[in-house]
């Protein structure tokens, strides 16, 4: 029994991180119908930014987290301004390819500047403790807790604040929103900034849990979080969270029951099955096409 509880905690921790990154994908897709393939690399930059910051100035954990989130928010908005905004009128595929290209540029620049994997210093002491026979540590609690706080805050913002309403309106009909006097460009930049901030936060949390960071850590995690966003219904904020936890659970369960080389096979087959039966994801709504 403890064994399953232990694995459940692992699944929730992994799922929280996937969910944070998936949120970035969903937010951007909702507002621009565009898959931001550079997002996984923003996650990686978050981890490296944290490393660089704390190696110059010893910061407490929460200050470092907020500083990194500010940096990655800026990065997200910058990528949007430089690479995506000029392509708003171009075919969507070009924007996607540009996103891929941006991601590769970021990843390989980091690789050229830091070819060796680096160790992330512990920003706070993780104390193991036992609850009902299950060994947990405070780091896991922190990761799950912070992720939960971010997700709830985002949900609240989307539902209740005027920016959230503007975001949802822009997802529905961008042209009409402009006519209503909403500064669409600002809303979009803000969306990318929020997505980037969440990705950066995920980067910091992930690098605390797995303290060896390298320039290619964003690639696989980025694609997996993208899968999570799609499972939940891309464009849907709650769907991204749901998808993240489902993917985390599937991955941990697979590794428990069979050799870890099967993990990707099972996860992607599950994705395929879900898409065949619910082509718009679990929480997604079918989009009507006008002919």
């Amino acid at each position, binding site marked *: 029994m403890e064994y399953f509880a232990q694995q459940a905690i692992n699944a929730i921790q992994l799922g929280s991180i996937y969910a944070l990154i998936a949120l970035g994908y969903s937010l951007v897709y909702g507002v621009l119908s565009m898959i931001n393939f550079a997002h996984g690399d923003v996650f990686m930059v978050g981890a490296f930014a944290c490393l660089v910051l704390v190696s110059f100035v010893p910061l407490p954990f929460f200050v470092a987290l907020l500083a990194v989130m500010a940096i990655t928010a800026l990065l997200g908005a910058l990528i949007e301004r430089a690479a995506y905004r000029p392509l708003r009128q171009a075919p969507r595929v070009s924007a996607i390819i*540009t996103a891929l290209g*941006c991601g*590769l540029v970021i990843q*390989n620049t980091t690789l050229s500047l830091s070819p060796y994997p680096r160790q992330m210093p512990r920003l706070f002491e993780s104390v193991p403790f036992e609850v009902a026979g299950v060994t947990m540590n405070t780091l896991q609690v922190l990761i799950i807790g912070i992720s939960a706080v971010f997700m709830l805050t985002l949900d609240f913002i989307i539902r209740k604040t005027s920016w959230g309403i503007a975001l949802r309106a822009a997802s529905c009909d961008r042209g009409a929103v402009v006519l209503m006097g909403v500064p669409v460009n600002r809303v979009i930049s803000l969306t990318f900034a929020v997505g980037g901030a969440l990705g950066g936060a995920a980067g910091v949390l992930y690098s605390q849990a797995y303290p060896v960071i390298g320039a290619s850590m964003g*690639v696989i995690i980025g*694609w997996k979080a993208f899968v999570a966003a799609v499972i939940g219904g891309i464009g849907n904020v709650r769907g991204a969270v749901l998808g993240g936890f489902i993917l985390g659970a599937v991955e941990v369960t697979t590794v428990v029951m069979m050799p870890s080389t099967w993990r990707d096979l099972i996860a992607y087959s599950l994705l395929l099955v879900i*898409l*065949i039966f619910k082509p718009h994801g679990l929480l997604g709504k079918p989009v009507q096409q006008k002919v």
Partner: protein
Amino acid sequence: MRLLRESAAAINACRWAMPAFCVALMIVAVAHEQCGLFNGYVEFVLITAGINIILCTSLNLVNGYMGEFSVGHAGFMAVGAYAAGLLAVKILPGVTPVWAFPLVVVFGGLIAAAIGFLLALLSFKTRGDYLAIITLAFLMIVKSALENIPFTGGPRGLLGIERLTTLPQTVAWVIVTLWVIRNLVYSKFGRAITAIREDELAAGAMGVRTREAKILAFVVSSFFGGVAGSLFAHQLQFISPATFDIVKSTDILVMVYIGGIASLGGSVLGAVLVTILAQVLQPLGTWRAVVMPLTLVFLMLFRPRGLFGLREFAWFLPGREWLRRRKDKSP
């Protein structure tokens, strides 16, 4: 300069330029095979360029002409590579004779085409981003399946493939690929494929057989993807699932979009350009991998459809098209 332009115009006007060029290429390739015109490294680069042309053109069929966004092409390449590799290493005894090699390549292509058929069936229900995700899932599933089946050598790869890909074989397959795809694109089915790209519902309403067109596009694209994979396996003599991951698919996508979508000449140009740049930029070391995507991003900002997007070299056009354009151009 004017002489150059005039001679270019003269070549363009001559209908026999393309076949003559193909024959010349084959002669050079066979001559190299017999007398060793180029050193081993140049031969390696030329064969790689040829394989990339086949990959690029076959992906262009689905991504460019049909307007989908398939990221799974490395999966077809993997299937073809492993099918051909396993046939040569584990099933056929001893050394494969040279005349049997094209059959091995075709076998690789056929297996890949069968998988492509399955993907085509899936594409009936979904389009756009969801199809992209399905192709991604397919790629990961193929890679993961290859890692887990002990018969394929698992994650550590398949060793002991003979060096059977030669320059004449590659040139022959490049010519076959371009010829088949060109004929497909300018045929009735090719028009159907382009109609799907423009507006699938309207095409269906007009009586275009969209399902058959989709099946044909995917099957032909995956067949040639598999062919490229077989040639690749027999060039490198070693394949592992790690080679055929999303990065490889991205590389092929980059070639397609640099060269230009829905253009055969664009595919050739994109493939050759990227192959040569990859070699020429080697002194840059890891910064090479920054320069290439940066070039792509700048290209997308200024020419979103690629260098030769939606346009075509006159040499690739079939007879009636060529005559039609000449007639349109002349006063």
